[in-house]
């Protein structure tokens, strides 16, 4: 299934953007979709089942309640997202796919900054804006559950558009992919 242009040597960064890009992208998507499922379930518990917000902890949070309240975990996930979006970006060689992926990276940078603010408050014990709990900038106006749904959506949407163009490059796209992600590269690599 390997693409003809895919290399088999180089640094770690070069390899995850060439012959390992497809596997890295799939692994990243498993993590992202798993995270989404938690948020979907949490909002379903609140909006549809009518559970009180503090008791709506998604699926893993039901088993490990500390996961939902842990700022370290939330910050860690935001950091993983940011690093993965940055590390996998060179593999997006087409103009459109790179533009959308970069948009997701930019939005995630601010999302990560918001979580960093929360993390600093949790570690220092001093909350900003005179609030009783750690509070991010956008949380001054928007409740946390809805804000998380918002951030995750506006990061994920440009990601999936970028991935779509990466899988199915338009006819106008002239970038030369170094990975095996694009669907037509599989046809080329398949035995006749």
């Amino acid at each position, binding site marked *: 299934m390997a693409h003809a242009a895919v290399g088999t040597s180089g640094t770690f960064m070069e390899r995850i953007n060439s012959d390992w890009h497809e596997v890295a992208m799939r692994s990243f998507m498993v993590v992202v979709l798993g995270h989404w499922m938690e948020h979907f379930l949490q909002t379903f518990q609140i909006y549809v089942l009518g559970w009180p917000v503090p008791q709506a902890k998604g699926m893993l949070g039901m088993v490990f309640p500390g996961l939902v309240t842990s700022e370290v975990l939330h910050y860690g996930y935001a950091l993983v997202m940011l690093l993965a979006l940055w590390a996998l970006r060179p593999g997006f060689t087409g103009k459109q796919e790179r533009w959308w992926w970069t948009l997701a990276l930019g939005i995630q940078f601010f999302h990560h900054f918001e979580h960093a603010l929360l993390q600093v408050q949790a570690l220092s014990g001093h909350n900003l804006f005179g609030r009783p709990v750690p509070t991010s900038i956008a949380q001054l106006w*928007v409740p946390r559950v*809805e804000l998380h749904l918002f951030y995750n959506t506006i990061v994920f949407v440009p990601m999936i558009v970028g991935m*779509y163009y990466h899988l199915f490059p338009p006819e106008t796209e002239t970038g030369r992919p170094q990975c095996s992600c694009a669907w037509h590269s599989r046809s*080329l690599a398949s035995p006749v």
Partner: protein
Amino acid sequence: MTAQNAIRLAMTVFTSIVLALSAVGIRWTSQHQAPSAAVASALVLSVSSTFALVALVIIWRGTGPRQDGNG
């Protein structure tokens, strides 16, 4: 069904979940949150829905993929 349409369909299902949850969320927040918070929630959930709809339009309106040889 082509692989491209299968991917499009999967993305559409996912987006539909986002849209449905946002719609239910706007209704729920209007009933359970203070007016100012409810307005802010409705705003961000509406923006989320708009983003999701834009993605759907982009994905479905696109022309076919580049064909390198026998692709």
